[in-house]
């Protein structure tokens, strides 16, 4: 599967990146391709292009606050989970994505 994701937590210092790392690690394990955009205190990094979004089979929002530039994902299947959930149970997130 081709997956794109956005992670975003309130202070944007730690959890945003932990979630990103968790999702990247798990994706690699399961053999998926993934690109994760972080929306943290340094702003938007590794921004998802419209090409990335178009090619994606699934979109994951691991966020506790509103995701920025949501318009990009209109019409796509989005799975929304909390940041904590992505950190602690990334395998469940991907299981959800499969279905």
């Amino acid at each position, binding site marked *: 599967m081709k997956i794109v994701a956005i992670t975003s937590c*309130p202070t944007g*210092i730690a959890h945003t*990146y932990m979630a990103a*790392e968790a999702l990247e690690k798990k994706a690699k394990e399961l053999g998926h391709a993934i690109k994760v955009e972080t929306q943290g205190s340094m702003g938007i990094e590794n921004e998802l292009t419209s090409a990335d979004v178009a090619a994606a089979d699934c979109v994951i929002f691991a966020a506790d606050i509103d995701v920025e530039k949501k318009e990009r994902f209109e019409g796509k299947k989005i799975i929304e989970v909390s940041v904590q959930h992505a950190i602690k149970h990334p395998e469940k997130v991907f299981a959800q994505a499969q279905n």
Partner: protein
Amino acid sequence: MVMSYEMTFTCPLKGGIHARPASAIEAMCGQFQSSITLINERTGSAADARSVLEIIAADIRHGDPCRCIVDGLDVRAAFEKVKTFFDRDFASCDEPLPQSGPPSGSAKLPMMLRLAGTEHLSAMPMSPGIGRGIAFAAGGPVLPAFDDCPKSSREPSQEWEIARAAINRVRNDLESRIAAASSAIERGVLTAHRSIASDPSLARSLERLIMRSGLSCSQAIVKSCEELSAPLRNSQSLLVRERIADLHDIAGRLNAAVGVVEQPSRDARCMVPSIVIAENLTPGQFLALDRTLVRGLALSFAGATSHTIILARGSGIPVIAGIEWNQLRLLHGREVVVDANAGFLLPRMTEVVERYFDLEIVKQQRIERRLARMSAHQGMVAQVTMEIGVNIALAEEAAPAFGRGADGIGLFRTEMLFLDRDQPPGEEEQYQAYRMAAEAAGGKPVIIRTLDIGGDKQVPYLQLPSEANPFLGLRGIRLYSRFKEIVRTQVRAIVRASAHGRIKLLIPMVTSPDEVRALRDLIALAQTALRSESIAFDPSMPAGIMVEVPAVALSIDAFCDCADFFCIGTNDLVQYLCAADRQNQHVRDFNNPFHPGHVRILDMIIQAAHQRGRWVGLCGQMAGNERALPLLAGLGLDEISVDAPRAAGIKSLLGVLNLGECRALVPQTAACATAAQVERLLSNASISSSLPIIDPDLVVVQCLGRTKAEIIKEAADILQIAGRVSDALAFEEAIWQREQVYATGLGHGFAVPHCKSGAGLIRASSIALLKPASPIEWSGPEEPGVNVVVVLAVRETEDSNEHLKIFALLARKIMHEDFRDFLLSADDPALITDYLIKNLQLFS
């Protein structure tokens, strides 16, 4: 024909007529000759409106109908005033009393105590430290019993003369104490005492008992005190009942003034480690305590510069003040904790309180170890070499100051030796004091300032002329020509003491080089005399001057020939520069050391002095202000001198400053237009960018904390000790605020509490790592415990994302097992630090 005038009114005051409004009435009547009588129609009692005690005794409450009768030669004028007063001004004459301390419950308790709902009493810290012991009530003169008073052996008229003289002495003594009072509370209490001492009903009572009943002075004093207290005891108002203690205090002073020796207060000496509680304590009473057993002091009131506080500071005894005596006295016999760092008293020894105390003791030890390392420069390379001196007022304070890492005594204020006594100290007494300080210094410099009186420092036995503008009048060296003997004695004592250490003599309030030369002549004379007496001294003892007169600040070069060094007195310099009396609340905002004009003049002084190779130090409140420190360091001062409690904090901050950034602050602040801009600039100044984000000081394996609250406190303390956050308590609060919003337990035995804040709180972004001895409950009882706590302190800054990148990288690494496993098993702070540096790509 003289008539009497009457008016009626209803008491509008919610608290009734207690001490403060009674004083207002008394003050209003003072200018007239007519007799003015106040009658409480509800009770029928009548009071002389000039007697605060009688007014209070009339117990006029809210809503009571009252009548005021005016009768005498100037009845018309008096009555007009009285009518206006009661009709118009009276209702608003009862302002809220200045609080004797912050109201209980407003002090921010550390979280671990707050979570446990720990009982506490807020107070003002007066001398730092923390102590634990059994509360022991002490202090307060006890009036002799009537039967124990000596009977009269003189003619009644002679006896009355003695009593009258005593009243005057007590009143004058109170006047000078009021002038010297350093806090509004102290001033308030002393003013209330003075009005009682001046109360006509007290004098009338004494006169009657002595002249008509033939009692001796002290019998009359004791009996008057009883009689005048009686009606006060019945009052419903606590404020009125408190005046009884004032009456007793005055009676005690009167007794002393007529030569009756003060009775020792309740005889009990502490036999166990104790926290001494008292309404207030005289220096004599303090010194009579067994100081090895006194672990702390809790007073109802004491000014910050009261001698007792100074002595307590010098002995390293924590002191808090401001708790009402009625609350404090109830603690007698209980084991309590006094925290004079944060400012509260814990009246109950619960398990949490014991833990808190233990953690605080460890914190003190860590601070001391760090200070010791800094003094020895072990492994700490501070860029700024400015020395930190300590101010002292008594020789006893010197040894503890050096024990806490002082680089010298920046200012020994000798006037304390001259205050509160009947005559000046002799040469031998002074010599011993100066010698004590010199010897305690062990080779470090001790700057002794010659007598600096006048202005706000009054010495009754010198009978200084009263001036309209004492701060612009005869002060410091300007008075020396009037008291040649006293000056000669002091100079001789200082020169003799110079044989015992590195003493530097400092001259106050200099305006012209001639003054300096005149004093140097005195030094030379003393040296010649001592030489001929074969008494040792240091012939190269330097003599320097205070820079506080603006004209001197602008002509430093003219003084470089006669002065060996300079000491900038910012308290007075700012006052004169900004034309704002530092004791006048109305102009408090104008008296600001951050005024760009002051910054420029400091720069001028230091440049001019250094150009001629002269040392420049600085003393005054500004020296102890952490916000000012980077600027002072950047200005290139050789030394700043602070009050003892501030020395450790200032030294640790100095250790983390970046000299280049500090220097850059000088032209930036000098170019500001207002003090507010200067302060803002300093708040945001990036002065610690040279600090690495992690170092072994911030890694604690086998830390003490056993609960989440304890570990967070420990981390905050560690960060403060290392100079990375300015205030551990505030940092703790910030972390907890974040915790409420977002869980920081990550599973896998890791927790990452963090917070972001401005440079005012977080001086340098830092990572601290703590490993408890056993797993800690973090996110709730069902979650597995935490073994590694990584604390992130992120400083908000306009510029780089550098630190944020590091934290982001750290966050990602924590998701990897090998990274976690290393941290879980490692137990060497240096190895952990190196591992983090490598993995987070922290190359300096």
